[in-house]
């Protein structure tokens, strides 16, 4: 038992050392750094389009790299690719398993992926002969539900799962290239860096982890939340991480100085965050909550500058298009709305 005690003491002392090291580099707070920046006036976004067509709760949506196309997944067992400007459905893909929890659009526009309680990630080829959309690959290896998936390119995809791991797959061969293990709770969401060299994952162990895709190592573990981290995203410059949690707060962490910079919270908001997305410049943070609203935060001043109210049930997913012109929200009331 003596050895155990020694190890325990060593672990504790190292943890204290980290806290000291981090404090040593915290020579200023966000409040001081932005004292000179002008305040953002009230932001009012209105619903420009409502995309109707799903028959059950919408669990996920993802914008494509093109300017107006997005894909959404709903528990009625359909994956719909929308042309949001005209509200046409470009493709309506029936799924083998209706318990879908996530969907993703490849940056090239050729592929879409989805997964859920079937523990598999199914990849569909949109560029099939004579317009038929068929399953290209079924990536099965997770032992828990698929909570999120994101394409790195047309040949690689990263998935996060309820079995606490994330996996990088080679799509052509359908095999796992790297398994990223380290979380102690279900991985709920993931985000890929703008330079595609790393990714972040948020889990039910109240932490977010930053991983290097090539090495397979976890480079940062960010803690501070008091409940499950449901939503995660990179700050547009690639050095910051935004997380949203069931404890009704969002946090901004910085990777280079290894600090938690700011918490976005308000006494009137008690419902958990389900999804978040930063605007193109990073000044605005749009976060969807369980209380059917989306709150718009000023990322620098940590104040609410707007509300998007229009859904009749929980907002389950949110995304900002690649040119930053519009934001799309999907909800359990089976509608997607485009706001601008």
């Amino acid at each position: 038992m003596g050895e155990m005690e020694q190890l325990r003491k060593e672990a504790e002392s190292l943890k204290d050392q980290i806290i000291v090291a981090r404090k040593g580099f915290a020579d200023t707070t966000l409040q001081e750094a932005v004292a000179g920046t002008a305040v953002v006036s009230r932001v009012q976004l209105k619903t420009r389009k409502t995309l109707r067509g799903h028959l059950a709760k919408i669990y996920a949506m993802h914008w494509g790299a093109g300017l107006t196309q997005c894909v959404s997944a709903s528990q009625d067992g359909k994956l719909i690719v929308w042309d949001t400007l005209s509200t046409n459905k470009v493709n309506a893909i029936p799924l083998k398993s209706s318990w879908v929890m996530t969907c993703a659009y490849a940056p090239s526009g050729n592929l879409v992926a989805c997964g859920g309680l079937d523990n598999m990630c199914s990849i569909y080829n949109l560029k099939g002969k004579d317009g038929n959309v068929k399953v290209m690959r079924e990536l099965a290896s997770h032992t828990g539900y698929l909570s999120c998936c994101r394409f790195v390119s047309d040949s690689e995809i990263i998935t996060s799962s309820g079995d606490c791991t994330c996996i990088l797959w080679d799509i052509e061969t359908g095999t796992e290239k790297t398994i990223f293990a380290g979380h102690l709770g279900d991985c709920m969401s993931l985000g890929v860096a703008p330079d595609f060299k790393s990714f972040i994952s948020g889990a039910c162990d109240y932490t977010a982890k930053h991983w290097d895709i090539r090495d397979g190592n976890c480079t940062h573990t960010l803690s501070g939340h008091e409940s499950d981290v449901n939503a995660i995203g990179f700050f547009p410059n690639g050095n910051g991480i935004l997380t949203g949690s069931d404890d009704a707060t969002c946090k901004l962490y910085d990777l280079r100085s290894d600090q938690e910079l700011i918490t976005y919270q308000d006494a009137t908001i008690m419902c958990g965050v389900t999804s978040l997305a930063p605007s193109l410049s990073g000044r605005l943070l749009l976060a969807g909550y369980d209380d059917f609203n989306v709150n718009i935060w000023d990322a620098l001043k940590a104040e609410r500058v707007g509300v998007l109210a229009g859904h009749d049930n929980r907002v389950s997913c949110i995304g900002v298009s690649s040119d930053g012109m519009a934001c799309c929200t999907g909800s359990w009331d089976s509608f997607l709305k485009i706001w601008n």
Partner: protein
Amino acid sequence: MTIRNVHDCGQRHRPRVACLKKVEALVLEMQDPTSGVKSQTQRLVITTIPHALTGEDVVAWIAKRFNVDAAEGCAIGTMMVAFGYIYPLRDHKRLILKSDASLYRFQTPYFWPAQQWPVEDTDYAIYLAKRNIRKNGVLELHEQEQYNNLHKWLNHKWDFIVMQAKEQYRAGKERKKPDRVVFDCQERAYWVVHRPPPGSVSAMDLGLLRLIDPNQEESETSDYFRRIIIFTEQCIMRPRVKSSVSLGAIVKYITTYKLHDAFLSPVLPSNPWLTDDPAYWDLNSLTIDNPTRMRVERWTFSFGELLSDPRGRDGFRLFLKKEFSSENLAFWEACEAVKWGTASTIHEKAQQIYKTFLARGAPRWINIDGKTMEVTVRGLKHPHRYVLDAAQTHIYMLMKKDKYGRYLKSPVYMDYQRRATDPEAHNFTETQLAQNAKNRRPSLSPIILRQQEEEQQAKLEASGPVDLTQVMSKLDKRNMLKEGQK
């Protein structure tokens, strides 16, 4: 044999709905006799029931407490009603807070949404049976359906359920009338929250269950500690930057991109989402000849921005050609093709790159230091996706430090700035907007856009860059001719 039906949405794993604690704190504040919400008595024919609240009082109290406007106060109040902390006395099936004189009452803590125990179907069956005893045919349609279902699959317990229902009914009759009315209302409200009528949105709808129980403590073996120690040591040794530096970078990024953020600044000529006119996207398409001023300006923000825009790369390529160092950009683009292409073509592409850029005497030899060259050539024997990473990074930094700055001052870039289009803001009238909406066409599929881009790329390569060996051989021939003539 016990049949354990656990439909508790992960409640057994950990406090699933983290907001309940916060709402409970708020409810306790509201119930404070001095500083809470004013209550009044409700008259119900002959009986009077105390402690009823009006909707508008609740909204006003919340608005004052949190310093928000009435609409938001109403939203917060509706959330409390949806969770079942306050229930309406009239119209009890609609769980919303109306900010008028309609009456509400606080729910007793026994009936608050619990986190310690799940809501049992057995209790629901007892409740429905009790109501059936009181007056046959009083159950609603959906309640009747549920009752029949429960009768079917709780059949093994049915005697127990009926007995409990009769007991509770008898005990209820012995209470005084006002207490009985209050208790009936409370129980009815509880079941509206936890067994909502069809078509209504339930706050207890928590979606799919979580898999892992994070409250399970991992057994603390020495291996567990060793892992923590290694991870923590690596974490400490990682280089850190002062937070003022990284905060400065974040603020700088936000300020630089502020005018390009469509949510914060207006878009020229007009936002297609607002006016249904796709002119903005046409002017900014990937294959256009004269990019807009905003786009040209973005190339000055960072080298990465320049390289990610195909037009930006075109201009840079032209500049490098004039400086006779276009092989750098060509190498960078070839490396990107290897990284993101299909796995089957990696080998072939890597060989091509070696022959064109890296081999001694190669036609487009790139200038990298000896060590990187050695590592890369060795790696090329067993090529994989990232085999050219080191060389690519070297060339990227070379271009960034040396060429990028000079490009931005070069005549090529100035030419782009001169030719940049400055679109006028549209000024549509109502009728024109309606016309635009009618003319809305579906946008081009990104697959087609990609194909167009690839076709352009292929055209460019066909009209290819000058092959130095050919030039040299031509010069040699000319010299030989001259020699021959002499």
